[in-house]
């Protein structure tokens, strides 16, 4: 029998606010345990939560960027369960009436039509603290570090619209791109700033009844998401083929083995006893607020990609690469603003710049060659001052010294030679010194032409105008 996997994702997005969601403590990490805490995030008796307005702004931005409706009156709820990293014995989250509802993202797999993936809801909530075991100065005991407690999160819940691990990864990548593009999340999956739980089930192809799903936790990279989903699909199919039944349960992904294992069954699942948090008043968001947020949204990656193609004439692939991150895309645009040759700027950003960044492990924000300088360099090529080959030498020097391209060209005498007399002189010398190859060429072996070009360029120390060299060589050799 053939099976159809059905996948839904729950993504936790840690927001880049300076302070926590319900108190004024810093969200800085890596500090001394429990140093970023106060009565509120410690859950002390008598302490009360106060909502951080920036979290609401970020949630609205995320919702509008994923085509959600913003709920005019949304409610915070308590999710009750006991765990030592949960100081109040409940997590403040949203249950009924989350801030964003009914959105979607369009994903496109290579060679396929775009597919719309529904987003059920986005809600705001606080993170829990962290348990510290054993060797961290605790002896045999365990400690609780509440620095992370009360850090703001968005939970983005998709519809079960995904049908393969590739679709799941494409959706996840797009969501990741949007939240980092908006600047509301640093997107660091290793550190858990963007983490994902996957709900996976399988059903016979053509069936209308969904299979029983398993929720897979702890899949914290795009690679692991793919691995975990693929493993889980096969596990469920094997189970059914062997006459078994899939049980509803929570499973944990083990990145070392690439397998999932049972964590707790449905029977062991908590009854969270959600109810509206009486310490927080309903969050009322006016139409004006939504419209103001909408007007403040940056151009989103999809829109920008489209504009790069239609306005700047870029190829779809190039447009996609150049919108991979907002910083890269902004860099490209800043270059085009100075030198109006989008194709050339695109090639250099995707080529030399990306290579140099990768080689040195630098991020685009810290690129030692600012986009305006790169544009100046490309101008020098396009106005014939230097050749493309020399430009690469100049670029290396710009990267190292931070000097302006024209300065380097002048200091090192790299100006392109476009004087036909001077080039003809060099050509004559080369032809005279290589009479054998001249004979070969004239007897029809035109391949040696490249040899002459190379020799002339070498003799000119790369400065001869290549187009002119070609032209003059042809006329000399034929003549």
């Amino acid at each position, binding site marked *: 029998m053939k099976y159809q996997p059905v996948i839904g994702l729950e993504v936790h997005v840690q927001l880049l606010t300076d302070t926590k969601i319900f108190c004024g403590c810093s969200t800085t990490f890596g500090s001394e345990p429990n140093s970023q805490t106060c009565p509120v995030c410690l859950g002390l008796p008598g302490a009360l939560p106060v909502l951080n307005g920036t979290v609401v702004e970020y949630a609205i931005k995320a919702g509008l960027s994923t085509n959600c409706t913003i709920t005019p009156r949304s409610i915070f709820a308590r999710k009750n369960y006991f765990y030592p990293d949960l100081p109040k014995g409940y997590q403040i989250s949203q249950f009924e009436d989350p801030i964003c509802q009914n959105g979607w993202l369009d994903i496109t797999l290579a060679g396929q039509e775009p597919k719309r993936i529904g987003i059920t809801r986005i809600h705001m909530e606080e993170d829990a603290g962290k348990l510290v075991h054993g060797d961290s100065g605790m002896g045999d005991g365990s400690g609780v570090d509440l620095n992370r407690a009360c850090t703001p999160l968005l939970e983005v819940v998709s519809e079960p619209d995904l049908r393969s691990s590739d679709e799941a990864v494409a959706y996840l990548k797009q969501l990741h791109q949007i939240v980092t593009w908006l600047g509301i999340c640093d997107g660091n999956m290793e550190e858990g700033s963007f983490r994902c739980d996957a709900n996976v089930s399988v059903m016979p192809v053509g069936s209308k009844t969904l299979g029983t799903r398993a929720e897979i936790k702890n899949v914290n990279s795009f690679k692991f998401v793919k691995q975990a989903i693929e493993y889980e699909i096969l596990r469920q199919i094997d189970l059914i083929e062997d006459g078994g039944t899939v049980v509803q349960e929570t499973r944990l992904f083990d990145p070392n083995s690439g397998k999932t294992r049972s964590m707790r069954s449905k029977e062991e699942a908590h009854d969270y006893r959600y109810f509206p948090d009486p310490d927080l*008043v309903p969050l009322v968001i006016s139409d004006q607020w939504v419209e103001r947020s909408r007007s403040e949204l940056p151009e989103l990656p999809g829109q920008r990609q489209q504009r790069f193609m239609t306005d700047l004439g870029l190829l779809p692939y190039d447009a996609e690469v150049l919108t991979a991150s907002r910083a890269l895309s902004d860099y490209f645009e800043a270059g085009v603003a100075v030198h109006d040759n989008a194709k050339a700027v695109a090639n250099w950003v995707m080529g030399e710049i990306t290579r140099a960044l990768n080689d040195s492990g630098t991020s685009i924000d810290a690129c030692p060659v600012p986009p305006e300088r790169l544009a100046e360099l490309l101008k020098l090529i396009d106005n014939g001052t230097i050749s493309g080959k020399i430009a690469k030498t100049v670029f290396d020097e710009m990267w190292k010294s931070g000097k302006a391209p024209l300065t380097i060209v002048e200091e090192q005498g790299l100006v392109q030679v476009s004087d036909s007399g001077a080039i003809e002189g060099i050509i004559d010398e080369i032809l005279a010194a290589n009479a054998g190859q001249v004979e070969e060429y004239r007897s029809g072996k035109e391949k040696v032409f490249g040899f002459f070009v190379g020799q002339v360029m070498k003799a000119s120390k790369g400065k001869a105008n290549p187009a002119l060299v070609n032209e003059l060589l042809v006329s000399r050799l034929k003549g």
Partner: protein
Amino acid sequence: MNIFDMTIHELHGALKGKQLSSLEATTALLKRIESVEPQIGSFITVTAEQALAAARSADQRIARGEGTPLTGIPLALKDIFLTEGVRTTCGSRILSNFIPPYSAASWEKLRDQGAVLLGKLNQDEFAMGSSNESSAYGITRNPWDTSRIPGGSSGGSAAAVAAGQAIATLGTDTGGSIRQPASHCGCVGLKPTYGRVSRYGVIAYASSLDQVGPLTRDVADCALMLEAVAGYDPKDSTSVDTPVPDYSAALTGGVKGLRIGLPKEYFIDGLDPDVQKAMTAAIDTFRRLGAEFVDISLPHTDYAVATYYLIATAEASSNLARYDGVRFGHRAQADNLLDMYTKSRSEGFGTEVKRRIMLGTYALSSGYYDAYYVKAQKVRTLIMNDFISAFTGVDVMLTPVAPTPAFKIGEKINDPLQMYLSDIFTIPVNLAGTCAMSLPAGFSAEGLPIGLQLIGKPFGEETILRAGYAFEQATEWHTRKATL
């Protein structure tokens, strides 16, 4: 007159006129506490040293001419208010070792005025009770008859005022916990409108109902205390950003033309005859003063107690989850996490608290939530609407505070339902979120105080204070003292 029997405004006059120092007053109060505390049991913690130091510094402040009406006044707080550096137990064993690192916003306001803290007052555990018998720190006795309960849950706050152990106190009121003990102990107690006083730093019982308020010896003191603690607090999202009126200035003006509603559901057959008699006399007094009476109805009153015990316990079950032995409070020795939780909470909480946690957990459980919690919220809305519509025709309402005067210690402790019904006339006000005041209106044949409840519109504290003040001026109930 005994210093310990003075009102705030009397003592303030004496401090200002240099007839007395705060140190003398504080010393007199501490002496009184020492002498009557064995009979009463109002206090869980007496902070004598800190009180004397605060009194000295208040005297300096007065000497510099920087005193305010509360500077140097010896007060005490229900042990539900967090006091930085001073143990705060909430009447529970689970917090027997809890020394808070911060103070309640309402106490900070009093302290900033130079008020002197005498100590922390006994109460029902986590404010759950109507008799002060659920405290883990012993019972509190009614100063008028020490075989009887003082009421609860702010029983210590009322008994201390009545027994001359504090000039005034703060309590909290979730279903009547200020008004009912005030009534039983013959003092004035006011539950402000929900959102009028910050709840920050007050240990939560039922967050949507809890409100801080004063217990005092007369209405003028009540106005002074309320004015001191009221106001918006950005740290409490449910506090309301509306200006605090000059409550003292609002006292005078009388009740001529004031329309007072008598809700028929509060004058029931089972009402104690002495309470009934006191109400009739009070109505006559108000009428003589020029008030008009209107018969009104609050038709959903019968459902109030049931509604309250679903909403309050649901919120409590969640609010009390933080007492888990992990970060503060009582922790039992155990071999694993689950045992640690179970044992710490089993040992730390008393019977009534456990009962309410169980009730609330049940009401919120999957499959029961709609039938209990959601339905209770709907009924709460109906009760609110009762008040809104009744208040279109009247300015205040007059009712008894409790169906009987103070009952005997032990009389209802094993019958939770009977105990819950002692709050039948106070609970609807909390559900409606409005304000109400209890004030002395007579005595039973056995010499027990009987309180009268004036219910105001939301943020109508000025009106009930004015009506209460007029009544107080026309009667002498508030001048009587318990003999100890």
